[in-house]
């Protein structure tokens, strides 16, 4: 496990030309690791028929609604594979 709960991470901003499971609304946004979810095959590889697919840790990452939408007091938790994330300097 690379990212501990509480670590601040940024979701990848790029728009790959293949299948991915980074929802568009969190791309480029900074969130906080809530918890690890175990290791799972990367959908980007599976969709392209890459055998074997990379297997990576998945994390629940919490984003404040205000950052995502400019409004709202709630939070949104999105499940993201490790290579979808980069650590943000504290």
């Amino acid at each position, binding site marked *: 496990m690379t990212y501990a709960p509480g670590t601040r991470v940024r979701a990848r901003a790029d728009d790959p030309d293949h299948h991915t499971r980074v*929802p568009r*609304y969190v791309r480029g946004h900074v969130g906080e690791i809530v918890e690890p979810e175990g290791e*799972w095959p990367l959908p980007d590889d599976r969709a392209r028929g890459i055998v074997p697919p990379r297997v990576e840790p*998945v994390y629940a990452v919490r984003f404040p609604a205000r950052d995502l939408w400019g409004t709202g*007091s*709630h*939070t*949104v*938790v999105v499940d993201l594979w490790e290579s979808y994330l980069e650590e943000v300097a504290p």
Partner: protein
Amino acid sequence: MSHEELPVAARVRRLEERVIAAGLTTDDELDTLLDELLDGAAPVNGARIVARAWTDPAYREALLADGNAAAGELGFSTEGYRLRVVENTPDLHNVIVCTLCSCYPLSLLGPSPGWYKSFAYRSRVVREPRHVLAEFGFDLPDEVDIRVWDSSAETRYMVLPRRPEGDLTEEELVTRVSRKGLIGTAAV
């Protein structure tokens, strides 16, 4: 219009015929898969888990720590996904969505309702959950925070609602839990 007459049914059938023609599967294999997927899948399963958590503090703790193991303890299969149960408290309300498709713990909640798969629910609940809940007739007090869980990977979420008031037995509590309560679009 019956389900079989819907345009999407014809599209699914054409897709099935192509994967069968390509030798990737067979009609029998598909039927078996679907039967196994839907066999016993119903919201009463989730309701039983919730009612047990309300009446047995040790089970509640185990459920919040490891959803799959706790569901298994009551005889429910959660194969192929990680089950994460999120607990409502007086200060925090949880809501489940899958913005990318319609992921959902089918074995515990039964086939998902049409609105759960709708573009409107998926796009709006992450943006304005309080309004969406109000449209379901569920007015959450302003001081309660909302956390929306977007099932974008291999975890399937289920909400543990707050226990209703009153001196109810576990069996009575089971009947109080609705599928909407398990998704978070109703109080219980």
